[in-house]
């Protein structure tokens, strides 16, 4: 099992004919993901290396039975693309687009909550999700992820940062530790899916034995995760928080990565998670090593 996706997930790529959509959509297919279609207005009837392209999401869903969408369109178009997918009945939407204004994200989130409560959005500005060996939606390099071992001890990963997610996958692979699912929730101020959403799923996923979490400065998502862990998560966890040395008042690359008014510091987040029983690594490698120890201790 995996969380949110599995080997049966049928994916369409919104923006399949664009540079990013084509590159990563084809990589996802080559990985084994069921990429069943693409959507580009005005290009319906064409195909991208055998993947049929449709004018809109509704047509694509009707023709292919897709239940997930990979949104790879520019920031101006992303909010409408997400809502179009939700409107067409897509239940799981991954948006990798970086640079979506926070006001748009807030409106999209509120609209999904009101009109499409059964739809889950991952992102925007996220690397996507991979269930190694089964399904990869987004920009993760699949070859760096160790597939889970059946009946073995596997790790679930949830992260706010793309490249640190890859780092975590890579470190676990070095240690030959399988990954059940790796979810990149993205670094924007209003992520569609939160740490807490993923922790709840991992806690209930029989394939996941332990959870590795990667956070960063800004906001309070890690503190909320700590509260949730205290009350609900019994699986062992390790974590890493980026941005200990980040200066206050600066957006550190991610729109959501900012320490303001003394709030959202890496130290505060580490303290909160530590108090919830999470083992904290001083760098991504150490967090992965701590996870390796956790897995070893589980036997």
């Amino acid at each position, binding site marked *: 099992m995996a969380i949110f996706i599995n080997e049966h997930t049928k994916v369409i790529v919104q923006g399949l004919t664009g540079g990013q959509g084509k590159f990563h959509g084809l990589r996802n297919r080559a990985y084994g993901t069921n990429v069943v279609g693409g959507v580009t207005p005005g290009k319906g009837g064409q195909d991208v290396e055998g993947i049929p392209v449709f004018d809109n999401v509704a047509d694509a869903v009707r023709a292919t039975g897709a239940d997930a969408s990979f949104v790879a369109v520019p920031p101006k178009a992303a909010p409408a693309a997400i809502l179009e997918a939700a409107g067409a009945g897509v239940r799981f939407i991954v948006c990798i687009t970086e640079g979506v204004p926070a006001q748009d994200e807030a409106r999209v989130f509120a609209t999904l909550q009101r009109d499409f409560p059964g739809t889950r959005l991952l992102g925007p500005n996220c690397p996507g999700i991979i269930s190694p060996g089964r399904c990869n939606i987004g920009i993760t390099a699949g070859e760096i992820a160790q597939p889970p071992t059946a009946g073995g001890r596997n790790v679930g990963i949830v992260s706010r940062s*793309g490249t640190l997610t890859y780092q975590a996958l890579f470190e676990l692979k070095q240690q030959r530790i399988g990954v059940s699912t790796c979810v990149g929730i993205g670094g924007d101020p209003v992520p569609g899916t939160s740490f807490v959403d993923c922790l709840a799923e991992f806690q209930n996923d029989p394939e996941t034995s332990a959870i590795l979490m990667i956070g960063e400065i800004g906001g309070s998502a890690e503190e909320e995760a700590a509260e949730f862990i205290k009350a609900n998560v019994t699986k062992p966890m390790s974590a890493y928080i980026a941005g200990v040395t980040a200066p206050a008042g600066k957006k550190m690359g991610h*729109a959501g990565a900012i320490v303001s008014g003394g709030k959202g510091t890496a130290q505060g987040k580490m303290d909160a998670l530590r108090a919830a029983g999470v083992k904290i690594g001083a760098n991504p*490698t150490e967090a992965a090593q701590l996870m390796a120890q956790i897995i070893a201790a589980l036997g």
Partner: protein
Amino acid sequence: MDLFEYQGKQYFAKFGIPVSAGDVAHTVDEAVAISERVGYPVVVKAQVQVGGRGKAGGIKLANNKAEVLTHATNILGMDIKGHVVKRVWVECASDIAEEYYASFTLDRAAKQHLLMLSAQGGVEIEDVAAKDPTAIVKLHINPIVGIDEATAKKAAADAKIPAKAQDGVAAILVKLYGCFTKGDCDLAEINPLILKPTGEVHALDAKVSLDGNALFRHPEWEAFRATEELDDRERLAREKDLQYIGLDGDVGIIANGAGLAMSTLDVVSQVGGKAANFLDIGGGANAELMTSALEVINFDTNVKSIFINIFGGITRGDEVAKGIVEAMRRVQLRAPIVIRLDGTNAEEGRKILADAGIPTSRLMSKPTMLEAARAAVDLANGKTV
């Protein structure tokens, strides 16, 4: 992007929020001309993005031309907590009966907009929150519903703003919300929001922070970007469209991805070094982008070594390697590079670097982040690696 008070007031005015008549002055002569135009008494206010202007002597009341001359002369060029005053805002002085506080932000935890309103304005809202949290009304607003005058008026009543001011406050709250949402603000704050003895309500200060991601639909923001307080390195990086933040160490940093770049700074610090900058080259690194990044790093004379930390996802390792080789042909680098390359097409990338014929004294490859950080810090400290 944080605006200066004068820019914030100009932005407020666009959304119909009443502000005092005034203008911005770069010279004493301009300050006098504005004062003559708007009429005495006027207030001369230092334009710096730091709190405590008043205490530092950066805000003065002037009753006549002679006083404007004195105050503008003193304030222009004044150093307030390391910020040199380049401009003053000169506005018609207001009679103040009462001072309130109002702001809109995004509550990231609730994923909703947040109105904060208090009848205790004119002081830092954090101080009010610490002393008397009940004095601040916090109201969540659904972004697809917004706030109407009735809701705003109820919030004003809840905040114990007197009845005579409630309609005026409510009208401004609705306009401020329009500024916050349509104007793509991260923060829109009025402190103090004043009630005049004549009964009008009006914004006496403006604190506005804009969401850089929304620049594409606000061409008018270019004027704000032009006055942003950047150091020379940051200005060069801005020209080259790079996500760069200047720091004061000696290890130049280039990484792909914000999280990895932050983590790189942290790891450099853990092994006893100090980063000279934050630089996220994001996805799609190519020779052009890498050249630009290295030019900006090379411009910083404090840089003693360069740590390039790449983990391939969107950015492919072979592209990065080609980019580095080409960039090293174009830029005469003062400092040696330590690179750590992994992820998508990393092996191809490492091969390109190894085959490029660059001596290891100029370009060194390390397999892990920690080893690369140690090597970069050692090089910065003048040790041979």
